Every structure is written in C-alpha cells, then in structure tokens.
C-alpha cells in the first residue's frame, strides 16, 4: 500500500521553540549527565543478574529439600502442603517474575519472540538450580559457617517432615533416621 502525505486536521500553531528554549537557555532544565544513564544501566543489569542468581539458589533449595525428603510421590499431598517451607517457592516465583519484568525493559524483548525469551529464562533457572543441587554444593554450603545457619533453619522447618524411612513418625519426623547437618 502506498502512502501519501495526509493532513486532515489543522492543528493550532503552538510555539514550542520559545516555551522550551527559554527553559533550556535559562538553565531551568539541564541535560542529565552520562553517568546517570551508566549507573542506571549498571543497576539494571546487576539487579537482573542478582534476581537470576537468587532464583537459581531458591530453586536449588527446593530441589534439595525435595530430594532430601524424597517427597515426590512418597507423601500425601496434605502433609506436604502443611509442612513445606512455602516461602521459598513463593520467593523464587517472585524473583523470576521480577526478572521477566526487567527483561521486558530491554530493547531485544520486543524484537524477538518474548514468549520464547520467558520460557528460556525460566528453564535456564530451573536447569541451573538442578545442576547446582546435583553437584552437591548444598552439602558443601551447609557445612560452611556462613550458610550453615540458613540450612539449619530450613532443616529445622523440615525437621517435622517425615523421612522415607520414618514410617510411623509422620507427625514429628524426629527419631526416624533424620540427621540434621
């Protein structure tokens, strides 16, 4: 379809030159310095990386807890719902959603298939979490001073989880072969 110049509406002529330039020359408005934009970009990239790392860590913790307790297919759903530390997956989902929102701010988000970008982002986070869990990093971290407390807290929450071997101890989980770190 060819295009032609059409001006069907006559706009009132407004002199923006005077109005805007008076603010420019008087110094009422100034050009923001370059560092303002550089800091903005750095903050944006750092936040995205931070959110991704945080989400990977939380996904890894979820997989770790599931693996440790052999939850999958072993327990009643009701027990799992009552005892599982739900703040971890909620925080992980929040991190992923925030990451997707930040990805949307980048230029490539509308030039490429954004749905595919979202799927890739989510899948990468889950795979990274899975790899970290399988590398045994949780076991190493849980022995380190800095992380030990965190793992102990999760384990204490989990302490009421029954282990596979703890048949008959469904309500407290202690004395069922469970060994804290």
């Amino acid at each position, binding site marked *: 379809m060819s295009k032609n110049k059409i001006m069907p509406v006559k706009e009132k002529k*407004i002199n923006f030159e005077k109005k805007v330039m008076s603010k420019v020359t008087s110094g009422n408005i100034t050009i923001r*310095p370059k560092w303002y934009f550089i800091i903005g970009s750095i903050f944006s990239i750092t936040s995205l990386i931070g959110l991704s790392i945080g989400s990977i860590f939380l996904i890894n913790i979820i997989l770790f807890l599931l693996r440790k307790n052999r939850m999958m297919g072993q327990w009643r759903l009701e027990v799992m719902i009552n005892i599982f530390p739900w703040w971890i997956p909620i925080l992980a989902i929040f991190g992923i959603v925030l990451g997707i929102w930040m990805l949307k701010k980048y230029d490539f988000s509308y030039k490429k298939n954004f749905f595919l970008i979202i799927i890739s982002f989510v899948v990468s986070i889950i795979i990274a979490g899975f790899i970290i869990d399988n590398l045994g990093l949780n076991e190493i971290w849980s022995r380190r001073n800095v992380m030990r407390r965190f793992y102990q807290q999760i384990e204490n929450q989990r302490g009421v989880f029954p282990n596979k071997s703890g048949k008959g101890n469904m309500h407290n989980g202690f004395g069922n072969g469970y060994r804290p770190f």
Partner: protein
Amino acid sequence: MSHIPKLSDEKIVELVREKDKELYVQIIKRYQDKLMRYANYLTNDENIAADIVQESFIKVYMNLNGFNTKKKFSSWIYRIVHNETMNFFNKQKKHILISENIDFDSGIDIEDDFLKNELASHAHDCLEQMAIIYREPLSLYYLEEKSYDEISDILRIPIGTVGTRINRAKIIMKKICQKIK
C-alpha cells in the same frame, strides 16, 4: 551555521550534547508539527496534545545523553511522546483498556484507495472512535509515514504485531467510516 539544517537529527543531538545547547531549537523546529499532529490523534484534544508535546520536548532534552546516536532519533522522540500520552491516559483513566489478545490477522486486504480517501476526508472523526491500540499504529503508518520497523520501535511491539494491528485497524476504520457517512 548554514549547514545545520542539512545535518541529520542524530548529528544535531551530538552537537547539542557536546557543543551548543541552543541547537536544540533545530530539533524542536523539525518535530513540533509532526509530534503535535501525532499527539492530537492520540488524545483528540489540542490543549492536552500541546501539554504532552511540550513535556516531551523537555524530557527529550533532559535525556539526550541517554539516546544512542546509532539509533534513529525520530523513533526515540515519538516513543517519548507515546509514553507521555500513555502516562496521561493512566492518570486520567480515560483510555479504554482493550486486551492485546484480541489482535488477529484477518487476511483481508482493504483497498488502498478506499482507506486513503477515508483518511483524507474524515480521518479525525474515524480515528477518534477507534481504540488506541489500533489508532496509534494506523496514524503512525498512514499519517506520519513511519515504516513497520519504526512503529515497532516506537510502540515496542514486534513487527508482526504492528502488521496485525494495522490490518485490523483498516477493517475497523472501514466499518466506522461507513457508519459516519
């Protein structure tokens, strides 16, 4: 100074940033009518459109260092007007929210002549009644003579969606114009 009018927008932006802020008047001269027309199509109100354009020129000036001169300046400045308009609508809660999911490719190609004639004769009346998600790409394509690629950059939507919306807008335009007649 005589060579200034021949310079590209991007080159002028560089000069404003580095040498002479008063050259910004060249940008205003080049864009005030175009932006006023564009804002007027979006808001259907000259006074509001004037406020939006003025505010946009101020924002453009303040954020000149955030503009990448390797990209097209016109798309950037139209994007800022678009954002200002959307902010205005959000504040006023005037706009009708229409789900983007209702985009579809009709496959129907409305005749060029019909649309051209309609736009030329009662463009404003017809456009006024159209939802903004269709009004905007249609006015950018036919009235501002922007390419699909530029519209994609201005609205930050994929090129395919630009095409879909313009096609859909043509059908709506035809229906609305026939009703008006």
